[in-house]
């Protein structure tokens, strides 16, 4: 890793993370590292390192962190969250960081597709005649995909 450029650090980054839904407890971390020790993703892909991600937040490395593809490699298994002695809720912190990355346009392509699907078809999978015929054949009730509610509910 390159040497840190102190002028680039933003001491308010951690406070902004703490204002996000899910990011509230980030400042309570005392770096014990149990999140990293038990993370199944870090064992496979060492670049994904929860303890390091927390240090980057606390040091204020916003730019470097939010553009990292590895933020999207957490499997949300909650092992870190359940093991943490300080209730940092690291899995939730990952969601908060992803939200921040999306707002800055730094999320990898394709990650925003869920919102489009809801507004187009009301569900993650399309429900048309084909799906409902198959359901009726098996004696299951018809279901519908109604995108209208989400067009009204969700802001662009």
């Amino acid at each position, binding site marked *: 890793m390159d040497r840190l450029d102190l002028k680039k650090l933003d001491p308010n980054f951690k406070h902004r993370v703490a204002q996000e839904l899910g990011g509230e407890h980030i400042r309570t971390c005392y770096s014990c590292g149990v999140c990293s020790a038990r993370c199944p993703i870090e064992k496979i892909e060492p670049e994904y390192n929860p303890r390091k991600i927390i240090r980057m937040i606390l040091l204020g490395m916003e730019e470097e962190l939010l553009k990292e593809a590895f933020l999207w490699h957490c*499997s949300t298994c909650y092992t870190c969250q359940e093991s943490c002695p300080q209730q940092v809720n690291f899995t939730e912190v990952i969601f908060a960081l992803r939200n921040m990355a999306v707002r800055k346009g730094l999320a990898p392509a394709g*990650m925003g597709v869920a919102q489009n699907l809801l507004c187009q078809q009301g569900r993650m*999978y399309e*429900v048309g005649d084909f799906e409902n015929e198959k359901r009726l054949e098996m004696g299951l009730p018809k279901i519908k995909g109604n995108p209208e509610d989400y067009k009204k509910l969700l802001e662009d």
Partner: protein
Amino acid sequence: MKYAFFLGCTVPVRNLNYELSARLVARKLGLELVDLEDFQCCGFPLKSINYFDSLIVAARNLALAEQADLPVCTLCSACGGYLSEANHLLQNSIDLRKKVNDRLRVLGLEYKGALQIKHFLRILYEDIGIEKIKERIARPLVGFTFAPHYGCHYIKPAETAGGIDPVEDPKSLSELIEVTGAKALKYDTLLNCCGGSVLGAKEDLANTLASQKLGEVNQLGGDGLVLICPFCNVMFEGQQKKIEKKLEQKLKVPVLYYPQLLGLAFGIAPDELGFKLNRIKDKEFLKQFEKEV
């Protein structure tokens, strides 16, 4: 016993075997599942993109169930986990509930915060109970062994999942397997994550995660891996061929949903339980039920 039946997006399109078998088993046990036609996405797929919007999408369903005056039963663990999480947040923060309700108003909906959400398996375990299920076993599955897979969102985060199982030592699914007469496999990778939620971002990483469990279950033998979540199914059944290639090894681990297993033990025929839709199954095992039912 009456619940609003929350199917989510994946199960009613891609996993009809799970839905069919759950409905049949519920009927046998006197558990009434009411379809609310306006239930749609749980909101979880939006959480990474816009957490607040995802809460609104979740709360829309909660408000609909509250209107119907029914607690919610889910089949998907991600749906169950997320609706529980949203419910917990909205019940505990008046401010957040107000903000969410301000948005729901365009649909004429409001969530007051009085709802209970339970995964189907948890209803079997807590509301109906092992003893009552035992009374219904017509065809004990003696001599068979199945590996339980709890998945992550069924039990975690503990704070919002409702404490059904200790997160490091869950027992509900194992006990529910054993009540059928089969043995529940004890194995090292029991608590491993399926990797399903990384599949879209990095397929190879997701496959590596799933391969650890499939490799162990294959090595230990037994009659299959028992699931309670369609996301786990995407990995263990849908990706199994790719994982075989990756490991350069044949796996052929049969994958089934828990209500299918329980249905067999209730004496229901494999066809009715949707086994035709299971892509990796033990045909010899199923043949025995076709003959005897």
